[in-house]
């Protein structure tokens, strides 16, 4: 296997982490829907927390993406 194909496979493997991030973001928003359905008046406070959690989880996805970019483009 030459270096170029190994790089491509490595970049593909690096973004497997996105599976966990997808599950995490889905979990955040499913909890958001549940909590707003139970207590609609808490919407404003809970929504801010959900967006914060979304941003923190999304950062993990971007770490994986950065690894893929580093493998591909450097």
């Amino acid at each position, binding site marked *: 296997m030459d270096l170029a194909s190994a790089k491509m496979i490595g970049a593909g493997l690096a973004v497997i982490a996105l599976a966990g991030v997808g599950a995490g973001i889905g979990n955040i928003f499913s909890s958001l829907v549940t909590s707003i359905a139970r207590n609609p008046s808490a919407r404003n406070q809970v929504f801010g927390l959900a967006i914060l959690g979304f941003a923190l989880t999304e*950062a993990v996805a*971007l770490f994986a993406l950065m690894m893929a970019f580093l493998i591909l483009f450097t």
Partner: protein
Amino acid sequence: MAAEKSTIDALGQFHLDTGLGAIGRSVNFANSNVMMVVAAALVLLALHYGMRRRAVVPGRLQALAEIGYQFIHDMCVEQIGEEGKRFFPFVFALFFFILIGNLIGLFPYFFTFTSHIAVTGALAVLVIVLVTAVALRIHGLHFFSYFWPEGAPVVLAPLIVPIEIISYISRPVSLSIRLFANMTAGHVMFEVFATFMLMLVGALGAFGYVLALGPLVINVALMGFEVLVAFLQAYVFAVLTCIYLHDAVHLH
């Protein structure tokens, strides 16, 4: 396939060039620094002209300044408590510097200085040094009990204390990498989809123009998403700074 792939110059947009001609070259004043000066000037000008009139019913610019002030002030008081008012100017400056940096990076031919880990790393180190200094000033040597959760069995000390110290040290790392990775990944995605358009036109000619509409639409949608991310990452940076300051003021 491999030959085409290598034509995507995804990271070329982050190269530093010297700005301001010969003077800039002699003092290493890069385009990143120019953008930082522009961002700081924009914030200061918006605040200056926003607050000059001091009308009871605010105009647009004054409303902008007041909403920004209120937003960060509420965030400080909510996250840190009453002591948070002391740290309000710091968090305010940090938030708006990063926000304007993220936003002006979205304009064509503008440089995104938050996409460089040197910049975000410096900001994160500034935050963590401030947090540690505040904690040491308020609590003195009692600050080091921060690394020891109360009520934990003493047997576990060799395990818990290093973990707590590592998690404390990894804060500026994750803080800086989060902002830099978000900005870099967003701009690389623009570049990749824009290159797809050129590739389609180059490979298929007239029919390629029709197919190139796909990446174009995706890029427009991405631009909207990036505006959201620009706000979100500035907000996350400021909120995490507030949370760390809360830990420093109250210990746990």
